[in-house]
């Protein structure tokens, strides 16, 4: 079947379309590929471009191309240590495509290059599925399709952008069919086989370790961590603690979860007040836990609540995940096991000795643990501590240095120092990491929690009350807790966005725009990115489609209906309306055919008239008049209704 395209001569324009669309597909990869490979690919592209500008297309010799192929393979192997896996695969695809440019000659080569181009387009969305990258991918697909159409257009059929017009039409008509397929195609929960190790990379977020500075690193990131839609009312900012990993074990510098084996099923606490119900849409963070409001009461099906009241999952969260939760903001937890008591009092030997002795001193001076806690908070509040995103670097005894020398720190400094002080004073204490606060989006009616809202706080165990949340940061920078990270560092964030608005109105509109944009992103996440097999069956069961078989049937019926409608509609719309003048002339021809004078298909009106006159000289004058009128009406732009009437009259009066 190849021979049907064999006659097509590939024009220069087609090659230029192809090079442009492949450049578009390649552009986002330029920075992520090793510099040698990006450069090589670009050189190949430019090479082909310069070949195309010459009078005759002369491609580099085969042996040379084979050498280039080996060289690129070696470079990819040296850089990635493999030729497989995701990143090496993308690099290989880009290189093969670039090499293909140097051997493209036949229609087949061009089509293969275009198909590989579609593949390159899909690699753009492997890590990044935002609205913008989706739009970009669609542009790339559009350009590639336009190239394919250009390849199938005869060379002389220009204007040269006619292919864009046809592509636009094709895309517009394909859109409804695509939506049907997207929503109805039965989704199988992936993966079908185990993914390469580097399948999901480039995710950020809180880890299960903390050291001085690890959270402040996150604080410059505006990336969304998760979004929360509350069923009733939005929780107050000062209660909005999103619980992540709980850290017990320390060497004085770093903090770890410690024994995570202590997952105990019979966790219990006495909830007080009403539960808060909400749904979280968590961005992938590649960790084995979910975030819930302090304290989570019910776990979604994919997670369990462990003894630390943390929501842990079996596998890493690698995709956008949606789950329903309920939590209690007031609670009372039970007694502490001896093991937990031991872990909650653990102190590293020979480190931060000044802090430890301060804690011990407080234990002797003050009677109750509660008094010690309050004293410590006062200490932070009254001493010249400051809250900063850029704390000075600390050495081997970071808590000592922070408490007694620098006194500038971020939440993790306060949480860590507080914990050391409390443990030294004999109060069981642990650090909780997670997020605090968030922006409420009034347009979408949900809370956005970003990476910059990452936070660390502490819990102390008090006899009779159980674990009690204490946030030492609040004593230093209460606005951080009340109004969120953005207001605490408003100066910094403003500078970061390089937009400084003096006018309140402008700021307001800017905020509105930002909320609108995030709201759009949220819907995008809910309906496009988060549309998986679970959501599909949830949505489709609402309209009575329960099984995969029903989905498939519904999909096929809907697609066929759509295509048939498209076919019928376009056929109906495209039929030419014959104008009045042609209709009258047609009647004239019909009239003549009754006396045996047929107009031949190739005969123009003038030739036809002449033939009639030779055959029937007697009606010559009338025929001539009709001919002149018809030609005048048909081929001259301006004519009146009266003239048409006159022609009609002439034809009617023609006596044969």
């Amino acid at each position, binding site marked *: 079947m190849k021979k049907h395209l064999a006659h097509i001569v590939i024009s220069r324009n087609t090659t230029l379309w192809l090079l442009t669309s492949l450049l578009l597909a390649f552009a986002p990869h330029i920075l992520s590929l090793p510099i040698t490979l990006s450069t090589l690919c670009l050189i190949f592209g430019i090479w082909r471009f310069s070949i195309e500008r010459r009078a005759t297309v002369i491609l580099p010799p085969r042996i040379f191309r084979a050498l280039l192929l080996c060289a690129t393979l070696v470079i990819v192997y040296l850089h990635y240590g493999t030729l497989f896996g995701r990143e090496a695969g993308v690099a290989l695809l880009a290189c093969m495509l670039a090499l293909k440019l140097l051997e493209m000659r036949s229609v087949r080569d061009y089509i293969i290059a275009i*198909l590989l181009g579609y593949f390159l387009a899909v690699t753009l969305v492997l890590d990044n599925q935002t609205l913008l990258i989706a739009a970009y991918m669609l542009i790339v697909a559009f350009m590639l399709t336009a190239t394919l159409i250009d390849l199938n257009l005869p060379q002389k059929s220009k204007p040269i952008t006619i292919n864009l017009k046809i592509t636009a039409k094709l895309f517009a008509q394909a859109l409804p069919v695509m939506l049907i397929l997207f929503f109805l195609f039965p989704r199988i929960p*992936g993966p079908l086989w185990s993914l390469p190790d580097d399948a999901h990379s480039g995710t950020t977020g809180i880890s299960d370790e903390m050291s001085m500075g690890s959270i402040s690193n996150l604080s410059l990131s505006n990336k969304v961590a998760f979004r929360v839609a509350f069923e009733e009312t939005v929780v107050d900012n000062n209660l909005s603690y999103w619980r992540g990993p709980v850290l017990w074990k320390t060497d004085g510098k770093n903090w770890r979860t410690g024994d995570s084996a202590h997952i105990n099923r019979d966790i219990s606490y006495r909830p007080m007040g009403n539960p808060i119900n909400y749904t979280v849409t968590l961005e992938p963070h590649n960790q084995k836990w979910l975030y819930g409001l302090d304290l989570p009461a019910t776990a979604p099906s994919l997670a369990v609540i462990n003894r630390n009241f943390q929501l842990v999952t079996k596998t890493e969260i690698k995709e956008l995940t949606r789950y329903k939760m309920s939590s209690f903001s007031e609670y009372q937890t039970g007694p502490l096991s001896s093991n937990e008591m031991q872990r909650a009092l653990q102190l590293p030997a020979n480190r931060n000795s000044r802090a430890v002795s301060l804690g011990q001193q407080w234990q002797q001076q003050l009677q109750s643990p509660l008094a010690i806690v309050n004293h410590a908070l006062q200490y932070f509040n009254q001493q010249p501590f400051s809250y900063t995103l850029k704390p000075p670097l600390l050495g081997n005894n970071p808590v000592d240095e922070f408490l007694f020398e620098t006194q500038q720190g971020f939440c993790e400094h306060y949480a860590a120092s507080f914990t050391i002080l409390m443990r030294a004073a004999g109060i069981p204490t642990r650090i909780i990491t997670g997020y605090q606060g968030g922006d409420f989006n009034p347009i979408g009616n949900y809370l956005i929690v970003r990476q910059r809202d990452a936070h660390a706080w502490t819990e102390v165990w008090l006899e009779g009350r159980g674990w009690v949340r204490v946030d030492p940061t609040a004593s230093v920078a209460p606005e951080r807790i009340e109004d969120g990270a953005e207001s605490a560092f408003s100066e910094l964030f403003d500078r970061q966005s390089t937009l400084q608005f003096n006018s309140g109105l402008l700021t307001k509109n800017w905020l509105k725009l930002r909320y609108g944009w995030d709201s759009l992103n949220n819907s995008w996440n809910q309906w496009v990115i988060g549309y998986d097999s679970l959501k599909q069956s949830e949505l489709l069961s609402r309209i009575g489609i329960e099984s995969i078989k029903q989905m498939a049937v519904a999909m096929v019926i809907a697609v066929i209906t759509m295509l048939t409608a498209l076919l019928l509609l376009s056929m109906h719309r495209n039929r030419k309306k014959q104008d009045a003048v042609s209709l009258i002339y047609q009647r004239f021809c019909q009239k003549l055919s009754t006396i045996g004078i047929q107009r031949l*298909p190739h005969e123009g009106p003038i030739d036809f008239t002449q033939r009639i006159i030779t055959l029937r000289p007697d009606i010559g004058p009338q025929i001539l008049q009709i001919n002149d009128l018809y030609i005048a009406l048909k081929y001259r732009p301006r004519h009146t209704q009266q003239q048409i009437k006159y022609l009609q009259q002439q034809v009617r009066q023609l006596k044969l």
Partner: protein
Amino acid sequence: MKYLPPLIENIATRLFNVERRSGNARSDSIVLTRRRIYILPTYYGVLFAMLLMLLLVGATNYNNSLGFVLTFLLTSIGLVSIIHTYRNLLQLKISTGKASAVFCGSMATFHLQLENRDKRPRYNICARFKETSPAIININDEMVEIKLTCTTTQRGWQTMGRITIDSVFPLGLCRAWSYITLPKSCLIYPLPAIQPLPPIGKGGGSGKENSQNGGDDFIGYRDYQPGDSPRHVNWKAAAHGDKLHTKRFGDNESSELWFEWDSLSALETESRLSQLCRWIIDAEQNGVDYGLRMPDITIRPGQGDDHQHRCLEVLALHPSPVSG
């Protein structure tokens, strides 16, 4: 065929019955209706489908929604393009135009009118006889004429062979085609022989008939015809504003030649026809009146394109000897 899915079966049935449906022998125009158009994926269509499968597996494996978006977008574009390809031929009207007579061995040219009766332009329509190179056109406005040529091997009427009209537009992923046969024939004259007409006066095999007059005697006037020697034009009369007239002489170039079938009895039929054909062409070129005498028909001497055509037509249609 029982085990094929209905769609494939339908297509296959249509394919195998192509001849029966491929032409309408009576009318000199054909509209490509939906029953006449076949459509199947091309090699590239199959390749494209394989790409889609790969993308689908990839998107499922990585659970990547945008991967699904692209996969389904391309699938839909592929599906919609089938309609475009099909519509590109649908309701196209093809009618025959002129087909001028040619000598055997040269290419016969058939003119075809392709009429687009829709508002939408049709791109990349390709028409061809079985083995010849195709004519590729876009039809933007109402009617386009294309010329298809085919080889000729035999004198007589050559009917226009089966024409394949196809299109892969817009994406080249599927091909719609239709076979049409139209009742148009092209007259093929015999192949002219190599032996030219002997110099006039010496008398070829044809025999020369000097009617009543011999020598250089002036025998009258006739209307001037291109090719007549200026020496024989009656310039005096022309100067008075009359039409041009050529003087006719009994024994010069303007004498009548008779080409006779019987004078070539030494040759077999086709060679005789070829020889007569050659003489007619030569005589016409030399501006000599010539007549043709065949066993069953006699054409009075004359000149001009129509006369030549009449003579050559007689030769072309001369019955072949029944062999055996």
